[in-house]
């Protein structure tokens, strides 16, 4: 085989494989959205979109699953709960971690080594290990079936402190901190006005990580929350599968409603988010 031939084959092969991967990624999304606009009858009749006489029969699709979701089942409640839980957790956890990371990065004090070691070691703790004792603790604190019981344990992810420490060590020059102090800025002002703006990409990344972590968390709310009025979307959707087992359109509509906000957020933030996520691994 000539060199030219090999090149052409490689060209086709690469693009073919990438195209296939893209299509295989897209199809479940497309199927999900299409199914969410179908009655049960239509769900059985067509795979993706209903086709009649070689054209798409849009009129056979229906928004009824969404209407039922929001009118009969108060799904907006779950949406609001998820938005609230994820925003509060994201903002407070990011602030906690940025402050902690700043202290470990830029102050010399007794106990710093110990704190850093603690943070590093804590990254190894698998979350399922502390589910049972956390449940018991929340029971003793009378925080079961409350939002506080979900938010408080999520406020101090150790890897966040570590990430911010790294970002501040490499991204915030000491001279700048000195200059701010000489200008009479207090420690808190220095942190807010000098440090935070310099680690903005990390803030964006970590806000997204903690927001997503709470939004997509299932096991904690499943265990902690009892009252359906307090269910976040993850549990509310799983409940659809339990209570409306044969209602396919409804289940898929609930899933779409749960995914869309996250996808919008991701599209808005994607540049910083993806590079921020990989930066830790590549530098390490």
């Amino acid at each position: 085989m000539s060199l030219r031939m090999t090149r052409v084959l490689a060209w086709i092969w690469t693009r073919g494989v990438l195209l296939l991967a893209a299509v295989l990624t897209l199809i479940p999304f497309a199927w999900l959205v299409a199914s969410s606009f179908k009655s049960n009858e239509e769900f059985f009749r067509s795979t993706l979109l209903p086709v009649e006489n070689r054209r798409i029969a849009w009129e056979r699709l229906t928004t009824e699953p969404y209407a039922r979701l929001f009118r009969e089942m108060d799904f907006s409640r779950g949406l609001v709960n998820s938005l609230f839980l994820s925003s509060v957790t994201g903002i407070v956890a990011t602030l906690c971690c940025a402050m902690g990371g700043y202290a470990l990065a830029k102050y010399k004090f007794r106990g710093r080594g110990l704190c850093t070691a603690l943070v590093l070691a804590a990254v190894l703790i698998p979350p399922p290990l502390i589910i049972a004792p956390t449940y018991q603790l929340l029971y003793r604190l009378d925080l079961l079936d409350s939002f506080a019981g979900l938010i408080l344990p999520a406020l101090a992810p150790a890897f966040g402190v570590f990430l911010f420490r790294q970002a501040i060590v490499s991204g915030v020059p000491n001279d700048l901190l000195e200059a701010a102090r000489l200008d009479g800025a207090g420690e808190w002002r220095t942190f807010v006005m000098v440090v935070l703006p310099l680690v903005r990409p990390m803030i964006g990344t970590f806000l997204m990580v903690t927001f997503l972590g709470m939004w997509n968390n299932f096991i904690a709310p499943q265990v902690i929350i009892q009252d359906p009025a307090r269910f976040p979307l993850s549990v509310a959707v799983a409940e659809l599968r339990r209570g409306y087992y044969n209602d396919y359109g409804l289940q898929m509509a609930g899933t779409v409603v749960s995914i869309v906000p996250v996808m919008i957020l991701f599209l808005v933030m994607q540049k910083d988010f993806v590079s921020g996520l990989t930066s830790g691994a590549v530098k390490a």
Partner: protein
Amino acid sequence: MTPPTSTRGATRIAEAVGDAHVPRRRSRGLAGLIPWLFLSPFLVCFALFTLYPLVQSVVLSMQTTFGPGATRFVGVSNYRGLMQDPLFWTALRNTAVYTLGSLFIQLPLALGLALGLETPNLRGRGWVRLLLFSPSMVGVVFAAMMFSLIFEKQTGLANQGLRSLLSMVGVDWSLDFGWLQQHVMATLIIASLWMYVGFNMTFFSAALQNVRKDLIEASVVDGAGPIRRFWTVTVPAIRPVAGFVVLMSVIGSFQLFELPFIMFNNTAGPDNRAMTIVLYLFQNGFETGDLGYASAIGWALAVILVACAAVQRLTARGEEAAT
């Protein structure tokens, strides 16, 4: 500016200490406090909701509980029971199979896709990257909802799609192919492939930026073929990140829970074939109500994961020493 008289709040002290006019001697004690004030929100939450539960999980693992309130000390019998519990071994085996599946199928594919995306003059590169990464943003619960219907007999996309595709080459694919009934592990591994292949690919892509272009050119001049070039130039450059990705995949895979839990309607699937370690932990802790046994399972999981991390560290260090 007045010297600090009250200790209310970090702001007050911080402003006072930062002020150059405050005499050094007075501020030293407070200045030492500043890093602790910055650390305090984290430390308080961390101590209460990570350290304390961690210690408590040791205590709990030596108790039998009936719900969160009633406990009875049983010593190491939870651990002894665990070793003799056939369901735990089933869970361990299933989880290991799933993990190996993700390692040996998913990661090579992820690397292959990352390499494909490095092709020069590729149009739509950014879009493909974005698209392949996007499923990892979808929560496992939501992906599980989707896949539970995709893999249904008769109506599911998997069987219908395969049927219409394979009919083109004259193969008859049965709509009754039992993904969720007979091919449990394959189903879980395929679903996780969709969720995470792009995520892992992104890390490999970032690592491939570390491959030195001059080395590639030099090896081309030396007449090395693409396969040789891959092993001698690319692999050494991406090795640290690859180790990280492998470790992340192992840790993530060993915590598999929501996917089987949702897909098999809050059960461990037919004949417990979708039983995983965390699913078993959940069943014991929150269905049976024995938080003690659940904690023992948690420790078994932790030991496995720490061992994996240690192995990864040691091999990484060995490689650093070798080069």
